[in-house]
């Protein structure tokens, strides 16, 4: 038999709703837990030798120029600046991510390099300086031209496409960091026992579990009881 121990300690902090609220504390056998030996150090995530080699080559390859990266960083900071309580795209390292991803997915490189050129041309035309040298108000006046696709003038359409790409990559780069995920509030990627949508959320949405459906669902207090059926395919345990 498996050695069993209460899962309570494991669950506290990882579950906001479900089993604990409903008062049944499921027992979890050792075989249902992630074995400690299986947890590789952060950053080790199952790459094949070929993938490791490619990632190393990409990391070492020259990406954007210093000047390009400086402009990318300013854009990232304008797209997702820090707030009073949480860091922004710069603190989350988004420019490094964009530098990598443009090497990894070649379809990004040319539109970004060309887009940066377009941006500087536009800034030179309006202010006689490249984007990097503009002040905050000037930055925002340029962004206001290209950040709102529905209102943008025809002549700045290349800038709209470029800025949309930068906004997409900045959002992805940010919300895939610990900082971004914490801010978003995602609660998962951790062992838990799913026992349905919490009551307050059901109420907010005016939905419910009907008895017929619930009768088909798992009773988490019996999850570690060995499955047994009768000949009519009825689950007995």
């Amino acid at each position, binding site marked *: 038999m*498996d050695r069993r121990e209460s899962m309570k300690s494991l669950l506290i902090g990882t579950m906001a*709703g479900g089993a604990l609220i409903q008062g049944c504390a499921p027992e979890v*056998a050792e075989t*249902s837990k*992630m*074995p400690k030996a*299986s*947890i*590789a150090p952060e950053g080790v*995530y199952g790459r094949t030798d070929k*993938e490791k080699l*490619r990632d190393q080559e990409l990391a070492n390859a020259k990406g954007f120029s210093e000047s390009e990266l400086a402009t990318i960083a300013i854009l990232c900071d304008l*797209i*997702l600046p820090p707030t009073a309580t949480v860091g922004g795209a710069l603190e989350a390292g988004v420019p490094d*991510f964009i530098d990598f991803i443009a090497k*990894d*997915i070649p379809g990004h490189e040319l539109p970004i390099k060309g887009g940066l050129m377009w941006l500087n041309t536009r800034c030179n035309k309006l202010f006689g300086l490249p984007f990097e040298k503009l002040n905050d108000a000037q930055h925002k006046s340029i*962004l206001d031209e290209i*950040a*709102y*696709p529905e209102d943008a003038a025809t002549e700045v359409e290349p800038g709209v496409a470029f800025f*949309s790409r930068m*906004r*997409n990559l*900045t*959002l*992805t780069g940010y919300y*895939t960091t610990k900082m*971004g*995920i914490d*801010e*978003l*509030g*995602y*609660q*998962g*990627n*951790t*062992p*838990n*026992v*799913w*026992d*349905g*949508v919490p009551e*307050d*959320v*059901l109420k907010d*949405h005016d939905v419910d*579990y009907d008895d017929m*459906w619930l009768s*088909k*669902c*798992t*009773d988490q207090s019996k*999850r570690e009881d*060995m*499955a047994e059926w009768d000949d009519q*395919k009825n*689950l007995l345990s």
Partner: protein
Amino acid sequence: MQIIESREEFDAIIVGSGAGGGMSAKVLADAGLSVAIVEAGPHFDPTDPEQMTQLKWPWESPRRGASTTRPFGDFDAAYGGWEIDGEPYTQGKGTQFDWFRSHMLGGRTNHWGRISLRFGPKDFKRRDQDGLSDNWPIGYEDVAPYYDKVDKLIGVFGSKENIPNEPDGYFLPAPKPRLHELYYIKAARKAGVAVIPSRLSILTKRLNNERGVCFYCRQCSRSCAIKADFSSGISLIFPAQKSGKVQLFTNCVVREVTTNTEGKATGVSYINKEDLKEYHLKSRTVVLAASACSSARILLNSKSIQHPNGLGNSSDHVGKYLHDSTGTDRAFLVPDLLNRKVTYNEDGVGGLHVYSPWWLDNKQLDFPRGYHMEISGGLNMPAYGFGFGLAEMNKYIGGVVGGYGDKLREDARKFYGAMIGISGRGESVPMKSNYCEIDPQVVDQWGIPVLKFHYQWSDYERKQSKHMHNTFEEIFEKIGAIPLGDKPDADRDYGLHNPGRIIHEVGTTRMGDDPSTSVVNRYQQLHDAPNIFVVDGGPFVSQADKNPTWTILALSWRTSEYIVDQLTKKNI
């Protein structure tokens, strides 16, 4: 991989280690037979920390999980994809088939969606209903006992529903629906569309003392380190190895099945990827489980005086009747889900908790054969692509489109978990004109002639896809949801994915009683060579709208028992 040349003769060589090969290895080894499994890819064990991707965070990947090197993203367990360096395939003029291969121990079972549906009585006899393609020579009653055994050995959750063509199994209990799935249930019921708990091979309850019970991380596509989902390695091959009767040959690409002057198999020859030399293994039987198209390729490449048209191909049917599921998708924005609470962990199992089985009668419709619908959505872990088009989503609800700064943070919260995806997966009509053959002019990096594909959808599939899209909209309008993007029209084949994209390809060595129109008999035994069997999707005569894995497993079990019986009786 120390073996240079096999002196010993195995009772069986199994080519491929996915669902069909794993099951055969388990049954044959448990019966005391000696088994060699020859797998083209490397060893894979989801409990190996060096190979594991489960519970990893997006920031651990420099591309944040993007699909640059693995087509379903960096964290997906499958090695391989639709394109593999050094292993090309070609296309007939004006046709398109996308061929997914996963070379690794366990094959595609390491990442698949775990949707485990039994074929129903009607699914084995489609010609009787619509006069198209052919009936299987066997029926549900022949396979049912093996479905039962597969349920109990491997585990599948679901619910007893008593729907005639959706047979119930020995089910573990279903997980409760997530919030977006409750919305879908409401919508489907209003629209008169069937909706029931999904049926996935994931352990929601203890099945045995070797495998764990699901801890709900939604990452079955990463292959489970506590063995709470089915993959061939952890559920079949590693247990089979306990018999001491199984030898694994990984990174070994089978080139052909060798035969003697009587035309019977003597073993296989393979290329060892590590030293690029060719080896020969001897056996009393050969079990092909390399995937429908790979097994067809091996047969076609196995030419001899006795089998001049390729092994098992006296009927000229090897490679013919290739068919994949139909598939098309749409996404909807549910205004009632905007700004929802993110106060709880909604991961659930790796896949849908509810689905819609086929609920209509084709006699009332302008296309043959049905489809089921799969639901996706909820509070997903962000990965590459999160936030793409986010600011533009406002156009659907009259908000400010675009922008930058704090507004984007509000947009991210507003739209998080507010979309529901729906996918139709249907039964195509098998056609002899859809096939693969050997391209005589092209070889892969191992020097083995490659496959050339010829595949076109017909109006049967196009009309079915059109119906799917109409249904999607009818369902979601019941909850005031807004369809995203454009509804695909005739110019785009009503959104049908290319053949091969759903990765349910079957039919290339089809089963039949008549050796002139089929490749294998009722026991998946070649008509042309009695000691060769095919236990992957190749023998499927038609594939229902059901994902093929559960049927591959059941048929492989049935065939493997037959092999034991026939070897014992010295019939082969």
